[in-house]
């Protein structure tokens, strides 16, 4: 086995020469994660806002469920989606198992509770400040939700970021429903798991570095955006 420094050098070389295999994997990873987070936001933001802004029967139950599902083990989600999509499952005829679509479905399910639960918290706090003014102005339910989501936009960016972090780093669900097929469903995390077990540490480490760098980059971008919003007292 090579020395650690050789592994590092080779990993750095792979990144610097923009290795096609590496790029393909990173691209697929980002594609799957971004689509999953986008769908999860479309569902989770309004869901969280409604639960955060209104009192209705069943609300505590929904809130507890969302909070509990935030810690959902990815392998369990992977297993459930696998059962749904497998040939004998209810969605089997769609033939989605071992496709990027299956991975998007699994990650979306993982991220929805995170987005919804965090959105609920953000919106609840904001609504406490706005509620009387909204009632006074006669703001209807729909306008309330959209106004709260808009006025919480910078906090919600952090919420989406939390969802992104969860999805991009997750391996358990995508490996079950994606199958880690080369050129088709191989993403950063599954490749790292596979290549490490094969002893191909260079590629694994290169992907690991990219993954961490991505996380830092996205976090820095969101933080910069938030602090500029804070200067305008919008956040």
């Amino acid at each position: 086995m090579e020395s650690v420094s050789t592994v590092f050098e080779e990993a750095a070389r792979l990144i610097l020469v923009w290795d096609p295999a590496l790029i393909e994997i990173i691209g697929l990873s980002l594609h799957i994660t971004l689509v999953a987070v986008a769908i999860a936001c479309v569902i989770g933001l309004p869901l969280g806002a409604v639960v955060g802004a209104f009192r209705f029967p069943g609300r505590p139950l929904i809130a507890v469920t969302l909070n509990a599902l935030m810690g959902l083990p990815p392998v369990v989600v992977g297993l459930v989606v696998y059962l749904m999509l497998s040939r004998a499952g209810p969605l089997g005829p769609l033939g989605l198992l071992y496709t990027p679509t299956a991975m998007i479905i699994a990650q979306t399910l993982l991220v929805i509770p995170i987005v919804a639960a965090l959105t609920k918290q953000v919106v609840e706090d904001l609504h406490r400040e706005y509620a009387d003014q909204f009632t006074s102005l006669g703001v209807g339910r729909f306008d309330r939700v959209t106004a709260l989501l808009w006025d919480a936009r910078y906090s919600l960016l952090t919420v989406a970021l939390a969802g992104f972090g969860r999805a991009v780093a997750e391996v358990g669900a995508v490996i079950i429903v994606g199958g880690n097929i080369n050129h088709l469903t191989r993403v950063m995390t599954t490749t790292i798991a596979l290549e490490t077990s094969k002893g191909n540490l260079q590629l694994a480490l290169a992907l690991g570095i990219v993954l961490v760098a991505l996380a830092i980059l996205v976090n820095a971008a969101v933080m910069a955006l938030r602090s500029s919003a804070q200067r305008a007292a919008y956040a």
Partner: protein
Amino acid sequence: MRDLAGDIAAAEPVTAGPALLEARGLTFSSAGAWLIDDVSLAIAPGRRTVILGANGAGKSLLLRLLHGLERPSAGRVLHHGRPLDRRARRAQAMVFQRPVLLRRSVRANLRFALSVRGLCGRQRAEREAEALARARLTDLAHRPARLLSGGEQQRLAIARALAGRPEILLLDEPTASLDPASTQEIEALIEAATAEGVTVILVTHDLGQARRLGQDAIFLHAGRVAETGPADQVLDRPHSGPARAWIDGRLYL
């Protein structure tokens, strides 16, 4: 010298004439405490009514009840003789002690309030411009609203409230934490509103402001109406113990 029964005045309209807004036997209790206790009053249209009283007398709570932000434990609020529903509340606008401004620009704050009332297009743009001019914030229209000074924020809140062309403007100590110059500007806005026919109900614990703005006065003590009448009478010749004590600067227990 009036007798003791005069201390807690009976339910009587502040002034004669048809009431725009009325409270009948209004009561609000929380955790066993009667915070508003059997309050009946009538607000005359087109006038400025000041609600006075010591801290904790229930002034803000009464205002919230009149606006329908709180549900009374007993009694009711009538607007043109009809129960306070959503439509009635749209004829009212309330300005809070600490202005609640959206995390948007000055103009967007006005736009939101107008959109909620179903205004759009040119009509809305005209009302926006009108409200900006009224608050003297035209040059700051694109500023984030929450970066304005305290006085500017309150001017925006009042202009936003008036942009919906309400019949009644309710204000809860709008100048409580403002400097004299800002207070003067706010009071000028309130006077201008009256000149346009808006009925004003103002909660204040500032005797000077009550004298400057009050036409009618309601004095609250411990959740009850201690005294009502024309402002100069209540402020200069109070007959109830609580009002006399408060105006003399004594503690009334």
